[in-house]
């Protein structure tokens, strides 16, 4: 194989694992901020660390085979969490639809406003924090499992 002077060294490749570790810790802090308010400068740092961790895990082509493998497994798991989230959303909206159907068949007027606007789908950062946490948990489960 041709010599590549820009190829990352072993220690540079190892750093990626530590960055994801820092991201996981920051993600746990962000998750706890859903219950206990955080100073904004801590939240800023944590959001930045989680973003860096996910970008390193997903975008970097300089990672090795094993890192890419566990990133793939963790990404699939995170997708599963999103799918479950959408299933729960669907159940909630099915309930709203059933209520509307009941009101209409009873000859009454619909009192509820069960429309869904962009705010309903994108306002929640809980989903983002939860999915990122799912990614980090699965990443480290895959890394340290026997």
């Amino acid at each position, binding site marked *: 194989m041709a010599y590549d002077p820009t190829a990352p060294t*072993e*220690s540079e490749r*190892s750093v*990626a*694992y530590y960055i994801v570790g820092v991201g996981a810790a920051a993600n746990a802090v962000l998750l706890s901020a859903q219950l206990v308010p955080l100073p904004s400068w801590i939240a800023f740092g944590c959001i930045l660390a989680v973003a860096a961790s996910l970008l390193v895990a997903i975008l970097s082509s300089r990672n*090795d*085979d*094993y890192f890419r493998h566990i990133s793939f497994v963790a990404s699939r798991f995170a997708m599963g969490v999103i799918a479950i989230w959408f299933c729960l959303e669907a159940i909630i909206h099915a309930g709203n639809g059933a209520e509307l159907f009941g009101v209409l068949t009873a000859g009454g007027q619909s009192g509820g406003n069960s429309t869904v606007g962009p705010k309903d789908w994108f306002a929640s950062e809980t989903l983002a924090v939860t999915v990122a946490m799912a990614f980090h948990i699965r990443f480290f489960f895959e890394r340290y499992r026997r």
Partner: protein
Amino acid sequence: MKNQLKVLRAMRNWSQADLGEHLDVSRQAVNAIETGKYDPSLPLAFKISRLFDLPIEQIFDDEFDGGKHV
């Protein structure tokens, strides 16, 4: 998948980081392969084979026949 990577590395007095440097992977990747947690990709398996100058089947054992060589 069982493999002889740890033995081959020890014969050369290399650390996992040293082997990682030779294979262009991280120390963590070498550890995962040695402990059987991760099976290397075909290009990496060939790289290992070339590094130790041994056929792949002498380094890796797929255990399909209960660990016995046919």
